[in-house]
């Protein structure tokens, strides 16, 4: 049961990463590798502030802010200095590795003794129910697990709704149109460069937020924790599209969240069944490869038959 709750919680935390990747990759068609650096950036920023005694909410907000800045830098490199989109992301990701080490001062910061959002959620849960655990269908659930899951669910719901509302504003609609048809967008007086900078900024803000929550839930921040995050986010977005189909923004946002949770559950099951954790990233990469290639391949097969 703890394993299942853990998978759900991490799935929800990483759904913020999936939403960030959804913005860069699906809305702007910008394969933004900054993600691999901005996720640990969020974790590092939050961890250092938490260890320093800052309030968990402030620390998490600061992580979001750091992600916003990282994304904006990638956007500026691409639009103002005309650096290829992949390379712009790689440059910022590489730079962030050093920056993250600078922020943390070492490669790993444990958070088990620090006041964090997870600890806060547990306290609130304990105040409300005043038992250290309860039984559901014969399984014992600890208050820490239950309150973390509920807390993360609330955060993801708020972020998802806010994102949905944003994409229906004048600014959000202009952003979606920018990825869709930039010629039209210019002809209607929208600055394409500004839209890309803003969009990547928002994307990486969400990814850093995901990193901050992940660090607080897992109880540590590690400089290596960002490796392969862009591929993981892509996998979630692709699963989400398979679940809801590709149409309205609201559905796609829901799909990205569902995709992330489902992917985490599948991983938990596979690990339980004896999969070596070492192979996880390879399997994720192969999965994304298959998801990208299979639709066109199947179409060709059908066309031939």
């Amino acid at each position, binding site marked *: 049961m703890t394993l299942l709750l853990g998978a759900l919680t991490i799935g929800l935390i990483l759904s913020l990463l999936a939403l960030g990747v959804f913005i860069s990759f699906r809305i702007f068609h910008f394969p933004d590798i900054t993600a691999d650096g901005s996720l640990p950036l969020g974790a590092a920023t939050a961890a250092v502030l938490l260890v320093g005694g800052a309030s968990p909410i402030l620390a998490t907000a600061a992580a979001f802010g750091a992600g916003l800045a990282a994304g904006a830098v990638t956007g500026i490199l691409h639009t103002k200095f005309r650096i290829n989109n992949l390379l712009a992301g790689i440059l910022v990701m590489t730079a962030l590795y050093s920056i993250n080490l600078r922020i943390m001062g070492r490669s790993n910061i444990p958070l088990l003794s620090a006041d964090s959002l997870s600890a806060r959620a547990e306290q609130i849960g304990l105040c409300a129910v005043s038992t250290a655990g309860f039984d559901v269908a014969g399984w014992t659930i600890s208050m820490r697990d239950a309150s973390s899951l509920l807390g993360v669910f609330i955060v993801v719901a708020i972020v998802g709704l806010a994102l949905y509302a*944003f994409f*229906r*504003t*004048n*600014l*959000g*609609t*202009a952003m*979606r*149109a920018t990825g*869709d*048809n930039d*010629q*039209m*967008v*210019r*002809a*209607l*007086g*929208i*600055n*394409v460069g500004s839209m890309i900078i803003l969009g990547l900024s928002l994307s990486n803000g969400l990814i850093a937020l995901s990193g901050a929550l992940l660090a607080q839930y897992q109880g540590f921040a590690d400089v290596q924790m960002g490796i392969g995050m862009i591929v993981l986010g892509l996998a979630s977005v692709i699963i989400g599209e398979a679940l809801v189909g590709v*149409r309205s923004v609201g559905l796609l946002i829901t799909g990205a969240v569902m995709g992330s949770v489902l992917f985490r559950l599948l991983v938990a099951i596979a690990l339980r069944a004896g999969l070596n954790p070492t192979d996880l990233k390879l399997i994720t990469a192969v999965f994304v490869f298959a998801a990208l290639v299979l639709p066109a391949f199947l179409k060709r097969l059908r066309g031939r038959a």
Partner: protein
Amino acid sequence: MTSDNGSPMLAIRRLSMTFSAATANEVKALQQVDLSVDPGAFVIVIGTNGSGKSTLLNAVAGTFSADSGTIVLAGREVGGWPEHRRAALIGRVFQNPFSGTAPALSIGENIALAARRGSARGLARALPGNLRRTISERVRVLGMGLEERLDNPIGSLSGGQRQALTLLMATWIKPKLLLLDEHTAALDPKSADQIIRLSDRLIRQERLTTIMVTHSMQQAANLGDRLIMMDQGRIVYDFSGAEKRRLRANDLLERFEEVRRINQLDRSAADMLRRTYI
């Protein structure tokens, strides 16, 4: 506004544009072009491929900035403005019917984007109820039944329908200048006819200052109150008033032939001079 004191809506002075300068592929797309367009004028531009007519339109719209010369639009020197800033004054419809709309966005959202051309875009709802009603009314006038499908993605519509919506979007906020770049060339004859009628009606009703590039001699003869023929980056004929009204499609073809012969003559004269003196 500039129309009050009799000054032109658009004044182009000595505009030049050379592509691939100083290479074997050098193309002088615009050579010291002067053009002045009065407020409310409907100017047709014709010319062979490579004559510079589309380059002229793109230079005014700001797709690229010209090598030299000035462009004054509604009293403002816009030559140094980026494309998106000029868009505050200019409405555009492209040759490709898919260029003017964002396919994944709904009809309503596309028009909502056009309804804020030239103004800041903030965090207000893009498609509030009152705008929706206005959109529904103005889309109904197109007579295509699209007012029932405002939430459908625009990518699901035909080229003709998308071009009609692009035209509506380009004129949603009255532009100081409307640029139509062969906007019916990629459509089937029936849709093309429909779009031309719609364009003509909108331009007349709103008295829109318009420059329209076309390949159709029929359109060139029947539409507009001024006609410009371009060749090799220059304006070679400029008809207006009664002279423009008298022009027929055949007359235009004759002018094309004339231009072609002059060009040949230029070349053979140059050959002769070269043989004689070099």
